[in-house]
């Protein structure tokens, strides 16, 4: 009897904790949606006083260039080697340019650049906003009749949204250069075939444009997660550290889930 009631108690506790997690998650989702609307409402200043947004593009975008370009180059070189190894078995090594370009432009460029952007820029945006909150800088701003969402959050959000497609494009471009270096310069694939097949097979509407759309959506997701986690951080050292971790984990999951959804729609359209 006692064992039965203990088991029932455990199940009730477990159900209770699942219920709490679900309601907490829904409440936070509601907060995030409201926060997103507040960012949109407070975005006027980000464009009227463009220097605020340009400053954030410099911090989030320009300062991420090194990691984006180096990673793009290496991924392109690996694609060149792996692609050549597979294609030459079927005697289609000339199609290496197409393989490298399509993989990068449609998939790897937007996804890997977004993952790198989330770890490099997203985490620092969360840390900065979280620390501003912990040191009462956001409250001080609010008391000075300056809306912190319009002045601090919105420019960082738009800085991220604008930077992301540009970084993904640069990632893909250096990746293609990496594939060219390995395929044409080192392995000796025909240079004419490498470029001409790429030019003939990569469609702007279906391939390049879908990559741009993906990276734009990832930019919105990562930037929103980064600013929200920072703004919602508990104002303590542990709170800020946990928010930074959340930004990286949630951004990665959001990017991969959104990639799946967007790709399925894009294939259906094609």
């Amino acid at each position, binding site marked *: 009897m006692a064992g039965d009631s203990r088991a029932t108690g455990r199940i009730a506790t477990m159900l209770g904790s699942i219920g709490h997690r679900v309601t907490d998650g829904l409440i936070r989702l509601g907060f995030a949606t409201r926060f997103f609307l507040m960012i949109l409402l407070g975005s006027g200043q980000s464009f009227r006083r463009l220097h605020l947004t340009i400053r954030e593009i410099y911090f989030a975008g320009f300062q991420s260039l090194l990691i984006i370009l180096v990673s793009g180059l290496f991924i392109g070189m690996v694609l060149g080697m792996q692609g050549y190894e597979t294609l030459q078995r079927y005697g289609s090594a000339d199609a290496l340019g197409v393989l490298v370009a399509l993989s990068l432009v449609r998939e790897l460029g937007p996804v890997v650049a977004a993952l790198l952007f989330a770890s490099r820029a997203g985490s620092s945006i969360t840390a900065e906003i979280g620390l501003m909150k912990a040191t*009462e*800088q956001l*409250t*001080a701003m609010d008391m*000075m009749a*300056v809306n912190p969402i319009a002045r601090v959050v919105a420019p960082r959000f738009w800085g991220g949204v604008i930077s992301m497609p540009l970084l993904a494009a640069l990632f893909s471009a250096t990746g293609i250069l990496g594939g060219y270096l390995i395929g044409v310069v080192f392995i000796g694939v025909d240079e004419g075939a490498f470029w001409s097949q790429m030019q003939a097979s990569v469609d702007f509407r279906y391939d390049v444009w879908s990559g741009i759309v993906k990276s734009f959506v990832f930019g919105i997701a990562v930037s929103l997660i980064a600013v929200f986690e920072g703004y919602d951080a508990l104002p303590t050292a542990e709170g800020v550290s946990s928010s930074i971790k959340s930004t990286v984990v949630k951004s990665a999951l959001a990017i991969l889930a959104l990639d799946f959804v967007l790709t399925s729609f894009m294939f259906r359209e094609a």
Partner: protein
Amino acid sequence: MSAENLVEISSLDFAYEDRPILDGISLRIPRGKVVAIMGGSGCGKTTLLRLIGGQLKPSRGEVLVDGQSVPHLDEEELYALRRRMGMLFQFGALFTDISVFDNVAYQMREHTDLPEELIRDMVLMKLNAVGLRGAHGLMPAELSGGMARRVALARAIALDPMLIMYDEPFAGLDPISLGIIGQLIRRLNDALGATTIMVTHDIQESLLIVDYIYFMSDGKVVALGTPDEIRASQHPFVHQFVFAEADGPVPFHYPAVPLAHELLGSAAHGGR
């Protein structure tokens, strides 16, 4: 509301979720005066400042600032009112990514269309008033605690506010900085024709500079008076505070079961 009071608070209740902080508090802050709100840590002093500044909304009661009901203002009206308020936060809350000069110039640039030359002169004058004109090029990280507090003070008075609020202005300062900040609070209030509310638990420093003191405990006003009345007060809470006694109406011990009971009880439970 009478015209001689800049701030009037009546029957104010406030709770964080189900934890009551303020319980039917009423007080008046006359124009042009320096008023201290004192009490132990966690008695609701800072919450009271946040309610006056409109950062929190009371569950009941009224907060009037210059005749306007703060809890009922919309965002635009609240921001218009806050432009006439200055607030000094406990640790300064300076913007760490910009210099001392830019911190003081912040509100001028955000809220006015003044030319940069004029802003420069005004910022240097504000910094001169707190004795830190020479430090205008430093970053906040390069300042000592007392200097940061003075820069924050210059920033709080940047737009010549009608009401200046200080949250623990003396916390963590050495005796020299403490005296300087105290004198500045008094001098700036009189020079600007402003009204000052100072939340603090530094009784000795406050008695030297304020016109009036409210004592708070458990979310209520328990005593009030001028510095002379406070010094002469026989109220047990005031007495404990003024003479810094460890025990009294504010107990030394956090509420707990009797020690003997706890020790014997824990022995009976195998030392846990």
